[in-house]
């Protein structure tokens, strides 16, 4: 994983537009959040291998970054993205890591199921 290169991500988003894609979208505080600190509210959610298609999408912000994908009837939105997998050619693998390197958010798109 490398820190996000905004221009590179925009090109990758553009390349994947206009066709059915499998999406993994996730946000989590970690299952132990309330165990370590009872004032914390543990929350996590993910959707894995649902199918989406967007006409256009873009990356925004100066880091951590936001991504919005415009769907025929709605949006995919993700904030807090910091890293991407630069070695992937067909898929877009984005993640947001906190100051300790822990994953907080993930947005992934692929022509094939994850």
């Amino acid at each position: 994983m490398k820190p996000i290169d905004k221009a590179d991500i925009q090109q990758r988003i553009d390349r994947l537009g206009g066709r059915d894609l499998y999406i993994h979208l996730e946000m989590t505080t970690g299952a132990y959040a309330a165990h370590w600190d009872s004032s914390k509210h543990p929350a996590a959610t993910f959707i894995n291998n649902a199918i989406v298609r967007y006409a256009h999408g873009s990356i925004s912000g100066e880091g951590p970054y936001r991504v919005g994908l415009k769907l025929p009837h709605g949006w995919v939105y993700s904030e807090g993205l910091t890293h991407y997998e630069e070695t992937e050619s067909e898929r877009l693998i984005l993640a947001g890591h906190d100051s300790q390197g822990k994953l907080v958010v993930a947005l992934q798109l692929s022509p094939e199921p994850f």
Partner: protein
Amino acid sequence: MERHILVVLPHPDDEAFGLAGTLAKHIEQGSQVTYACLTLGEMGRNMGYPPFASRVTLPGIRRAELEASCKAIGIQDLRMFGLHDKTVEFEDQDALDSRIDALIKEINPSLVVTFYPGYAVHPDHDATGAAVIRTIGRLPKDQRPTVHCIAFSNGHEEKIGKPDIVNDINKYMPQKLASLRAHKSQFQGMESGEGMPEQQILDRLATERFWTYRFEA
């Protein structure tokens, strides 16, 4: 001596913290150990520091780490159940129970170790322990192996009392640390500059605690 120990836990690295030293001790004494690890921990938040794993690569990385950890402890038989991290509580209970039941029938363990349902913090831990307890509870009383449970939720001792088994595993710390270090994506940053965990962490790691499960009927 335990003839054959069956360990049933949901995540790669659960074995490292909870009972690596105890297992190393039993293995040295001649016990066989089968470890059923239900998921690959593929939803873990730790990705290495700086992050070297992604959601896509994490399952493969954690599988290799699990195999290395088992080797470090001396575990002879690893079974990966292939469930998805965070979903154990949502699996078909009968299907999960029958897989555990089949494994128990196959290896006929003298001791089973799992999480104490309700006192193990992570929903996967509680669901794994509950499946093991349900399955063994259905066996005739005289055919049930002993079950040792791991508990660590806040305030658990107020509900279930003190552990009846407390093992000082200092002698097996090399195996335990090797097991923890095998889970590189999960425990980077645990160690101080000298390449050893802080003394406070070492002290905590040196004690492994278990509650013998008492079946109601």
